[in-house]
């Protein structure tokens, strides 16, 4: 699991690559919490290189979404691969998250 972070204006773009499973979800959770705790609540997560997500990974996103929504922020998901998208569908998470095909559109959608 590789996690990288970039800043695009006021939006924090997090890129995940590899497998987000029970092992790596702790790292991702810690990273997301650190970002949210520093009051950066407009997050875009680029999942282009995410190969696999387990329920632990979904749980991390659910918890993070709860936190940022409370502070009027949001998490936008970008470039999901079909299998990942299917998992999000099965768990009913596509109703919660805004999902985009392009990182730029996602980042722009944060603009008022």
């Amino acid at each position, binding site marked *: *699991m590789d996690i990288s972070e970039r800043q695009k204006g006021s939006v924090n773009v997090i890129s995940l690559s*590899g*497998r987000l*499973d*029970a*092992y*790596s979800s702790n790292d991702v959770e810690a990273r997301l919490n650190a970002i949210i705790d520093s009051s950066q609540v*407009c997050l875009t997560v680029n999942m282009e290189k995410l190969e*696999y997500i*387990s*329920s*632990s990974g*979904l*749980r991390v996103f*659910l*918890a993070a*979404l*709860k*936190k940022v929504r*409370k502070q*009027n*922020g*949001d998490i936008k998901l970008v470039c*999901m*691969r*079909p*299998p990942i*998208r*299917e*998992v999000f*569908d*099965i*768990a*009913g*998470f*596509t*109703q*919660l*998250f*805004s*999902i*985009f*095909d392009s990182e730029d*559109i996602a980042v722009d*959608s*944060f603009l*008022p």
Partner: protein
Amino acid sequence: MLIAQIPGREQRNCSQEVSIRTLYRVTAEKVMDRLFACTTPEHRAKEQSIFIGLALGAFGLIPGTITIVLSHSTTLMADVLKNAGLVLATFFAWMSIRKMDRGDSSNYNYGYGKLENLSSFIVATAMIIAQVFIFYHIIERFAHPEELGEMGTQLGIIFSSIAVLSSAWLWKHDHHLAQRETSPMMESLWRLYRIKTISTLLVLASLGISLAFRDHTWAAYIDPIGSIILSGFLIFTIYSIISSSVYDLLDRTLEESLQLIILRELAAYFSDYEALHGIRSRRSGGNVHIEIFLEFDGERKMSEIQKVINSMQASLSSRINNSHIFIIPATSPVC
């Protein structure tokens, strides 16, 4: 700030066929995931040690069979048959994990129940046949005591020594890995190698004593006695393989599909709670007990929260058979 979002629209390049098969594949991958997650060096080390164990086990059957033929030792036979059962069970677990990993979901339309029954059935049948075979030989040997073949016994001692050393090394190695990070699979693996080390030591002792005292008539009984003790190990080993590892594997699979159902519910009730502090699930008998720790808005009335809790409980109960769902208000993370 929030943009209305229509599912399946923004992302055009994906086929959106969501089927129950996907659920199985996802859960399958998850199993693979927990056992063999290959992203960090530790996980690679873990995958390697399972591989090494399987390869050494399978390879060890060849010299084992040769020494049985040469020495006519029932103890050696019991040991080799025990190892063969172990290799078979490991192979089945490994194969299903491989299949799961490849996402070859078409074979899993009937769920894991089928797979579980089939491989457990094969292993159990092999075990019973081996046990009957060994008992037959023990009786035969007591009725017609026989001196062990000298060369075969010497070869057996050499191969057993190698087996003891390698399983002792795997025991130490896996124990080390298990201590570095808690993993039930590594936990059960190092215990397995501990048993293997001890039982191979028994074989060594039995062969050694038989050889050392081969001039005495009573020495002919050492081997069948050793095989009786080893057949106990055989039953125990195969039992623990069937009951713990394979069951664990499938239990975790079920666990993952449960988790997805629970997460779906948590997504549906997203606005009704403040934070998710943990999910615990366990099985006892045919029942599933699920505990969900949720934080609620402290300013809300208990009656409103009770409504949410009851509604979530009812919804989850209808989706998971024989489930007992408890939603527990929490202020700090649990688990």
